[in-house]
């Protein structure tokens, strides 16, 4: 129904040209206008990106690792970016993909946590709730053809239960006792599975650290968008802690012996 009397006419003269004019007069449109409709753009590709995130369950909880690099294409643009973030008292998320979208997600979840805190109803959000919320947001955004360009691992411990799950820009979710995003899903995940699966209740903190460090090292050797600085988040029944930046010790002397590439002549 057109509620503007000035637009009313009998017969509807947008369909019937009573005076034989040409072209047919357009009825003025007085509905809501979006002056920027032509200018709205949706995310088509990530710009400043983070690479893999690794995670595993172990005896006392869940551990995540991610390096400190945010790349601009193939340029190692920002080398001190934290890609792990504590959300509330029981959860850590780690993100690969677009870092500005990740910052948006951090602000969104922080607001969510504050809303829950100010309710003072004795309830807190655990990793399962945060993962579900994130998954709904990610799927809603992909359905608007405007995804948040991330692959995110959500890990945590609440009420004595370990939780580890994945969600990405499409809203796809899955869980396992060890997970990896991005390049790590190809290179590190097979190693992680061998090391972790079946031993989730046996591995202690030190062993879990070792496995993650080893996997990060392999990724640094193989992944050209990675860096040798990384952080580890540990979530246990006691709470959340995110480590200082650690350095990976690597040796590249083997490169001398590589034949078949570049300028050497055997």
């Amino acid at each position, binding site marked *: 129904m057109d509620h503007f009397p000035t637009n009313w006419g009998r017969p509807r003269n947008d369909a019937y040209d009573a005076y034989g004019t040409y072209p047919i007069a357009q009825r003025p449109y007085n509905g809501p206008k979006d002056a920027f409709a032509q200018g709205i753009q949706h995310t088509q590709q990530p710009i400043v990106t983070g690479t893999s995130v690794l995670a595993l369950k172990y005896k006392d909880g869940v551990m995540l690792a991610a390096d400190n690099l945010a790349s601009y294409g193939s340029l190692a643009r920002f080398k001190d970016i934290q890609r792990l973030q504590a959300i509330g008292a029981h959860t850590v998320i780690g993100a690969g993909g677009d870092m500005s979208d990740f910052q948006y997600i951090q*602000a969104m979840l*922080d*607001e969510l946590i*504050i*809303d829950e*805190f*100010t*309710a*003072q109803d004795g309830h807190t959000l655990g990793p399962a709730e945060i993962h579900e919320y994130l998954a709904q947001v990610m799927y809603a955004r992909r359905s608007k053809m405007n995804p948040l360009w991330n692959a995110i691992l959500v890990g945590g411990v609440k009420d004595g239960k370990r939780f580890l799950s994945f969600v990405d820009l499409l809203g796809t979710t899955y869980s396992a006792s060890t997970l990896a995003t991005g390049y790590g899903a190809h290179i590190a995940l097979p190693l992680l599975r061998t090391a972790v699966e079946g031993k989730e209740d046996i591995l202690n903190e030190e062993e879990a650290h070792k496995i993650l460090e080893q996997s990060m090292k392999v990724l640094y050797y193989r992944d050209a968008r990675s860096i040798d600085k990384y952080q580890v988040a540990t979530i246990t029944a006691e709470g959340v802690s995110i480590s200082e930046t650690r350095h990976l010790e690597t040796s590249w002397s083997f490169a001398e012996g590589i034949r078949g590439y570049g300028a050497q002549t055997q």
Partner: protein
Amino acid sequence: MTSIGTGYDLSASTYSPDGRIFQVEYANKAVENSGTAIGLRVKDGIVLAVEKLVHSKLLVPGVNRRIQTIDRHIGLATAGLLADGRHLSNRARDEAANYRDQYRQPPPLKSVADRLGLYIQAYTLYSSVRPFGISTILGAVDKDGPALYVVEPSGVFFGYNGAAVGKGRQLAKTELEKLKLSELSTREAVIEAARIIYLVHDDAKEKDFELEITWIGDETGGLHLPVPKDLQAEAEAAAKAALETFE
């Protein structure tokens, strides 16, 4: 009251000939009928305490809270109409969230008090609305340390070291003035706050009351939280003991 029958008190958008807005003054009366609320700004934090009058023995204990959390670091205690207090705390939460969204940092209490003052003042301008029957004590530990404000039904707000609103505010203010607030720790302030609330409670007139105490400071990691059960019990026991010696 001289204002009644003159016709100048029928709307908040009409001044009396001597420049007063009676509806705002009536709103203050609504505050004066409510159980006392106090706030203490001390060395390392803030303590808020409320004498919550329990009008029925059938009420579930701990229900109808009068101290609300606005942000991680901000608490709000109200005296006046309960429902107005809840509306106001919701508004304060929105303002705090909006500040965070715009400036990406925790809101300083002054900004929240300022915005809440503007909101309350708008309700003194129109004949179609009624001013808030609420005086609210806002407390926080922000980037500049502990802060305490009181926003009145007129929309004005002032900063305080110690604040009291509601029925027993006169006696409470006298007691607050005796304290060396800048030298007290939050833990000591909790004991004092409980004592003052127990002191101002008028056993003869009012039935039961519940004591609500919250704090913000180093002990809570900068969060606005109810004081732990054992400390509350300790404070109430000390308050009752002090009451014996006071009389």
